[in-house]
């Protein structure tokens, strides 16, 4: 069974009547995803791509049996929509939009934990399970079915890795965008856990970035609980340093956050460090990954 999206996944699209929402709904349907409807408050009764549009998530769940939702809601309205969706009993939420205030994200995260919702994002391309379906914006043509899991902080870098692997006929079991913001709804170690437990995944690639401490925490999980091979690329080696003001962040984080800190922690955990994305090909050959 694949992670996150399987035969029972019934997706609604929130913000389905918007330009991006409707376009992406078409792509998701084309990829074979079971999209059952959409929600835009005030637009109930309309249809988009022959799918019913509802005023509320509760109604959408009642009428369609939806159990997963993908957001194309404008950033200022995401917090409200998130509470509504969690309250309607949906357990998988993908928050695609960028520029959501951090103070909203921390509230969403706390609520998701309380309601046992698995939520991804914000600023995520979503999830794609090759051949089965996708929730989000990943361009289907770059992915192919197989046994390598990818978790990426950056949307477009997840496409890059999937594209490089697919060109060499190495397919993916699932590709998960964890979200690029400083606070994300589900942390990297918790996503790794899903891949570790997944019998359709043989190996995992972590695509990280400079900043924060997700990759350092992932290294702790790999050292203690991961049996599958892991490779990691961390972007931002040549990124200019920000002009840091204030001390609170540095006191809380310590030395975590740099590319060096992440690579050292991951290497010590047993993961292979890729200095450049293309090195992923050699890693698959060396570890006999198909």
């Amino acid at each position, binding site marked *: 069974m694949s992670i996150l999206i399987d035969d029972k996944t019934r997706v609604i699209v929130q913000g389905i009547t918007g330009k*991006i929402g409707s376009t*992406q709904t078409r792509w998701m349907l084309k990829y074979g995803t079971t999209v059952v409807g959409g929600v835009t408050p005030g637009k109930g009764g309309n249809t988009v791509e022959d799918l019913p549009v509802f005023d509320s998530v509760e109604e959408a769940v009642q009428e369609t049996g939806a159990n997963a939702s993908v957001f194309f809601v404008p*950033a*200022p309205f995401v917090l409200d929509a998130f509470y509504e969706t969690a309250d309607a009993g949906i357990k998988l939420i993908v928050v695609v939009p*960028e*520029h*959501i*205030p*951090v*103070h909203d994200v*921390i*509230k969403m*995260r*706390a*609520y998701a934990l309380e309601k046992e919702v698995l939520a991804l994002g914000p600023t995520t391309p979503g999830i794609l399970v090759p051949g089965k379906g996708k929730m989000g*914006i*990943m*361009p289907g*043509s770059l992915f192919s079915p197989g046994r390598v899991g990818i978790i*990426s902080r*950056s*949307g*477009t*870098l997840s*496409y*890059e890795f999937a*594209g*490089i692997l*697919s*060109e060499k006929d190495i397919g993916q079991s699932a590709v998960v965008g964890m979200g*690029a913001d*400083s*606070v994300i709804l589900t*942390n990297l170690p918790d996503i790794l856990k899903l891949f570790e437990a997944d019998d359709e995944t043989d190996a995992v690639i972590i*695509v990280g*970035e*400079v900043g*924060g*401490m*997700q990759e350092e925490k992932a290294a702790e999980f790999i050292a203690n609980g991961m049996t599958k091979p892991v490779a990691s690329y961390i*972007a*931002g*080696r*040549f*990124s*200019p340093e920000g*002009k*840091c*003001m*204030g*001390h*609170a*962040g*540095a*006191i*809380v984080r*310590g030395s975590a956050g740099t590319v060096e800190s992440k690579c050292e922690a991951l290497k010590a955990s047993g993961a292979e460090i890729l200095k*450049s*994305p*293309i090195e992923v090909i050699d890693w698959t050959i060396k570890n006999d990954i198909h």
Partner: protein
Amino acid sequence: MRLYEYEGIDIFESVGIPVPRRGVAETTEDALIIAGEIGYPVVLKAQVLVGGRGLAGGVKTATTPEELEEISGTLFNFEIKGLPVRKLMVCEKADILRELYMGITVDGFSGKPVVVVSTEGGAHIEETARTSPDKIASFYCDPTFGFYPFQARMLLRRLGLSERLLTFCADVLVRLYRVFSQFDALIAEINPMVILKTGYQGGLLAVDSVIEIDNSALSRIQYPLPQMTERIENPLERKGREIGVTYVDLGGDIGIIASGAGLGMATMDIIGQRLRPANFLETGGGITEELLYKCMELVIMKVNLRAIFINIYGGINPIHEGARGVVRYIRDHNVTLPIVAKALGNHQEETWEIFRSGGVHVVTEAPTEIAVDRLFELVGKK
């Protein structure tokens, strides 16, 4: 958006945190007038948006008008970490007994506001955190619950505070949390929070402020704030902000346009091994024909540019529309610089065709390394 110290102190004052008497000077004459009203000695503090100002010599005490003139003249001609000093804050000199540290930020991994306090305030607080962690106490808040005086008192008691100082500091800390919350701050910090030798103003004075506001929340803050673009010193970076992309000016001569920060950084890392990036430009998810036209305009403003490297994916972005913007710019301005583009995803074939019609070198393989090889063939070494 980072606020200047004087802006932050105004905000502190608006929520009832005790702050010094002060004024902002743009000239030495202004500074003399303000100091005359406050009374000597006064402290002159260079207003720059960078940390480590005190250690860099940006804070000085003047005891007489003559001394003030000399210091002010020096500071106005001073650069701190490359930033010019345009304003000085002139403030009363506090009679310091002790210095505390109070700061609130968001902890990225737990997703919680974290309140940090220390009895060792001042410029060396990060070192204290490493060497004497017992002098630092922190508390992770439940973001849906908030932060209450009893929690502030529990936290401050861990540092050994008691009696009136305990309740007064707790009151300030809760007000600081209010600033953090109402201003959608990524950081709100008082360092140092001065305990005065006298009982003046309840014995406490917030003599410095650091506030950084979440750019994604600027439009909802109910307080008159300056325009974000006014804060950006670099004209190219300011233009980037105006057209709605992230642009960072770098020292090299290869222009970069990428969709997504991660891809942009990876592109820079790969190019940086053999060539020197002129900029980092990340479009985010809002590509249109017009946006990429403006991105071309912006990247080309950099002098001595030798080539442009475009790395974009069609996921949320309509890259075929973006390609039209690039080609229209090339035609309008007869651009002859070599341009290499890797564009994959939705509408990729259409995108390649449009790029090729404008003379762009299109690479269709997935690895950015292969596209950078192509760039390298076209421009040669550094």
